[in-house]
């Protein structure tokens, strides 16, 4: 068989792609964004959600954040005792928990260092704002995102990692 010139072969590649795109089974590689949405991976780092009940205002996340974009304000208060008749416990009441998403690098260190499972990654990615100052989200908004946090995925065979649960 004589050698097909490379230029003709190249034409074949583009033509094949065109046929592939038009075939119902193939389809284009792109999606029409506002109408269809791609499903991000369950681990995708979209936005950080806060489970407020678990937060003890220990400030670990705020300290470990590489660009210090987490703001926490809290005051000490007395909570009702665990057992009836016990002494009231002293707890930190969270006043403010805000993440400045214009600074956040989405590195995930805060989620990782949180010792009480208060921070979670949500794959939600549609939280853009018109003004950059509006990207400073307070704890109400962070709490709302808890609903979008998916369950942790099971691990691949051979793993010894412990499965975790998302508190609801």
């Amino acid at each position, binding site marked *: 068989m004589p050698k097909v010139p490379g230029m003709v072969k190249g034409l074949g*590649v583009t033509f094949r792609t065109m046929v592939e795109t038009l075939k119902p089974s193939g389809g284009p590689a792109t999606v029409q964004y506002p109408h269809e949405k791609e499903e991000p991976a369950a*681990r995708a780092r979209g936005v950080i959600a806060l489970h407020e009940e678990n937060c003890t205002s220990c400030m670990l996340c705020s300290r470990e954040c590489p660009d210090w974009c987490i703001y926490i304000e809290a005051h000490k208060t007395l909570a009702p005792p665990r057992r009836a008749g016990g002494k009231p416990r002293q707890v930190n009441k969270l006043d403010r928990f805000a993440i400045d998403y214009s600074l956040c*690098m989405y*590195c995930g*260190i805060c989620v*990782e260092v949180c010792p009480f499972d208060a921070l979670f990654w949500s794959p939600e990615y549609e939280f853009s704002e018109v003004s950059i100052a509006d990207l400073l989200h307070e704890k109400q908004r962070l709490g709302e995102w808890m609903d979008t946090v998916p369950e942790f995925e099971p691990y*691949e065979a051979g*793993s*010894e*990692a412990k499965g975790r649960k998302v508190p609801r």
Partner: protein
Amino acid sequence: MAKLDGEQVVRCEPIPGYMHRGYEKLCEVRTYPQVTTLVNRIDWLGSFANEVPFILAAEKLMDVEAPPRAQVIRTILFELSRLGNISLFLGDLGIQLGGLTIGFYAFRDREFVLNQIESATGGRFHPNFDRIGGIKDDLPKGWIAETKRAMDRIRRLCDEFEELVLGNEIFAARTRGVGVIPSDVALSYGMSGANLRATGVDWDLRRDACPPGLSYDLADWKVWTHPDGDSYARTWVRLQEVRESTHIVDQLLDSIPSGPIMAKVPRIIKVPAGEAYVATENPLGEMGYYVVSKGDLVPFRVKIRSASFNNISVVPWVSRGVIIPDLITIMASLYFILGDIDR
């Protein structure tokens, strides 16, 4: 900056520094876990690969070693970031030479690699997944099968690229004999990676000086070289490297041992005093971290040897007397990432 005589280059000198972000200095005020989030951004296309040498250097200082499962997964992700990086090189070369479609193909299939990186690490571009003594998390269920499909896609991209670009007479006319770098020049300028292998030097850190913590010995693979040293050779070597990389990933996926993914390390990491230099074969070439520790929470000094800086230092030598369109080909085929030059 290029000084021209008509369309002929008299002298061309890269002037780096416009993207200097001071990483070496920033690293000195970040704790060891925080540094990985920074160094991710040096070569932003193969970001996981940037973490690895630093982590390995820290591990060397702390004298810990990641468990075998973590090592294999680390190596797989390392190769995935190489695929993500070099497949973009193939597309970028096409765009620089005016073939827009090639760029689209590269972006299309690179997406499969990025999706795999994302579903394992959570981050598409900046995974921040490597930890001293292991990796952050284990793989999710179904990842191995999905990655194998992605590798098939990448091999198909390689075939398409070979037909569309390397086999094309126009491309050959543009790149063959353009920007020839002999091996002694390449060595004296300290070039590394595919640029060096394209000059015929058979040198790959993955095979020749693989630091402990990566498990390339589990796979059976080949280092490709090309004797010509021109732009065509550089492209060819990279394409073979992508293909070889998919085979490495496939083999490693089959041989992931079971076990833990983290070694025993203290929660607050303090690295004992000492110095360590670890270099790995990154997508762009040799990347090394020289870490000096004084036993503190933060490194005392971090020196980063990135591949692009050395690779572009050859530009003044190679661009003498070439014409402008060839300069484009040379620059595109040398393949540098601005962040990797200036750090």
